[in-house]
């Protein structure tokens, strides 16, 4: 009964609910959308566990499985930020991102394949989990950057005379800070993902770095987010530049994750 189609619709509804909660500022809407999202997350986790049991191996060995895995972490990370900081607008964007990630699985086969010899390694767990966690943090950072840009746009054009500058400034400061912290966490996990991948490549393919398309794009994404973190060092004030970099940087993440598999040749053809 739980399948990607169901999860996609559930997260879409959750995302719309969160946007409504943010717009109406009504507690009831926030509570309902949050509970709905939590239920969807639990069912999502159950689906992952079921898939892993059926396959007889960890459920993230190909693009189909990792998309479902990543969308799980995106929503999980959103709820962690919600628990700490109660920002429901992030839920709207996170729900949409998770929904789109799951929708991409419709382009792929859902068949359970046995593990290839090159994937039979303990490094699979560390490399894939850390990389996907990194991507998920960047996805939530993308959401907070999007919220920042939308708030900035609204404050400049629609709320100039209705909302106090102090309140707008506080909101932008918070979203900027959240974007920065999420990128910092994502950068740490992406660093772990790239290094464990390099070590695994050395064990499996005899070279820790081949300038393979997947490796190169992951490295370029890492450099981009390093530049993003450097920006914060230059300017501690809320920065539209950083929000834009975090927003567009996620497209680099998606190309690294998804685009390379389909448009470029890579030893990572299965992932």
């Amino acid at each position, binding site marked *: 009964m739980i399948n990607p189609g169901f999860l996609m619709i559930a997260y879409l509804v959750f995302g719309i609910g969160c946007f409504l909660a943010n717009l109406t500022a009504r507690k009831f809407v926030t509570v309902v959308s949050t509970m709905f999202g939590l239920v969807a997350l639990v069912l999502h986790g159950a689906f992952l566990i079921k898939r892993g049991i059926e396959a007889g191996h960890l459920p993230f060995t190909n693009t189909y499985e990792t998309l479902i895995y990543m969308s799980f972490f995106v929503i999980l990370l959103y709820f962690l930020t919600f628990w700490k900081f109660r920002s429901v607008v992030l839920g709207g964007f996170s729900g949409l991102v998770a929904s789109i990630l799951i929708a991409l699985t419709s382009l792929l086969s859902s068949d359970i394949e*046995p593990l290839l010899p*090159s994937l039979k390694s303990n490094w699979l767990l560390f490399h894939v989990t850390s990389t996907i966690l990194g991507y998920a943090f960047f996805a939530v950072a993308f959401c907070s950057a999007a919220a920042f840009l939308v708030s900035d746009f609204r404050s400049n054009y629609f709320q100039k005379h209705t909302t106090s500058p102090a309140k707008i400034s506080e909101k932008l400061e918070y979203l900027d*800070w959240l974007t920065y912290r999420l990128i910092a966490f994502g950068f740490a996990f992406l*660093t772990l993902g790239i290094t464990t991948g390099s*070590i695994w490549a050395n064990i499996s393919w005899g*070279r820790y770095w081949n*300038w393979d398309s997947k490796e190169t794009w992951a490295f370029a994404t890492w*450099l*981009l987010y390093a530049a993003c973190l450097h920006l914060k060092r230059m300017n501690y004030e809320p920065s539209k530049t950083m929000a834009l970099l975090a927003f567009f940087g996620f497209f680099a993440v998606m190309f690294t994750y998804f685009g390379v598999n389909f*448009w470029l040749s890579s030893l990572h053809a299965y992932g």
Partner: protein
Amino acid sequence: MFRKVGEFFQSIRIANFVLLAIGLVAVFGTLPIDPFLFLKPRAVYTSWFFLSLLGFAILLVSIQIFLGLFAFASPFRKKAESPKPPSLLTKITSQEFPIPFQKIEVLQEKITSFLKSNRFHVSCLLENSMAQFVISKNGVGKWGGFLIHLGFAMAILGGFLTFRLSDIRDVMIPEGEIFTLPREQATIKLEKFTVILHSQEPKPEEYVSRLLVKDRHGNIKNHDLKVNHPVWIGWTKLFQMRYRVNVEEVELIVYQKEKPVEEVSLKPNEKKKLEKFPFVILIDQIVPDFVIGEDGKVTSRSPYFRNPAVAVSLRDESDSTLIKSQSWAFQGRFFHRGEKETEFSFVIQRLRKRYTSGIKLSCDPGAPLAYMGFLFLVIGAFISAFVIPRKLTLSIQPHLTNQTVHIEVYSDRTKDLIGLRREVDRLTKGLGMILKEAL
């Protein structure tokens, strides 16, 4: 002028430019169009331009490492930790409490103990008209950036060493053949190569090369080389990469009207004359996993010899281009649906295959340095993300009539302003409770 040069090499804008330039050039190398605007994308990684960019990045990073080491190891560091004047700090909050300043002296121990319970290092300066608590924690967080820079430099340098000094080769070794490793003075024989298939799926579970190794001391040992399980021979590492299989010979039994009449061995593409009959036979095709597809054509389900079949043609002895009959031979006496009955038929008695194992030999002196770099990168990135250094100055001064105190909290500039404010809120609430109890 030296200052300007120094500022240039420490500029974050320059650093960002270099990082993004490296990224752009690197992704250019992944373009599938070759050549692209008269440039060969894949050649960019060994081009002088790209290597210069990496070298410049190492230079910038090395300057940061040097400055970091200088800052941490400076003998004047103690002086730097003494309280900065408020004008150089950021004010976080200020509050008033209805308590005489004289009581602060008495409460100094309690305040210090409270701050220490929040994992702060505390140093206190008490004067007639001011009490200053300089508190700090998570000092290890300052090492995050330093370790990332160090790790990055080491990883890139390791890469340079690999590029210049490594010896990485691919060899294809047929079963039974010997190859030598001159550097290790070892000889290696591929005794057998095996493909282990999954029980239910026509997919490989494992590839194994059984190697017989004789080292420089004359010791002989067997090693099983598998994917993800490399084997060390001296300083050279062997990796199982790929394989190839060739059918060297096919032994067929010839049936005439369902009775076995002759045995014949022949190689693929070899024409062989039958001894008892005036015909020549030729193997036209070998299919490892015979199946008839939905379109009615013969195909192979997989590259693995699960249901091998051989297309045999019986030809005229005098003119071998004249084909008398064609049929499929299997490892068993049966016919597939639709096949016409012929006078002669064939059965495969033995299919002699020879595997060739693709092994990568690697001697890479850059790998240990790169691995060290990876370790520092990971540690540095996690410290930067999760350990935020805090340094606060709590300034307590008497206010107005000396019956109240004014507490101000200052901090160095920080990227984590909201986290700092939350921490300061917690501290001031706790301090407020201590001061209220004292009333």
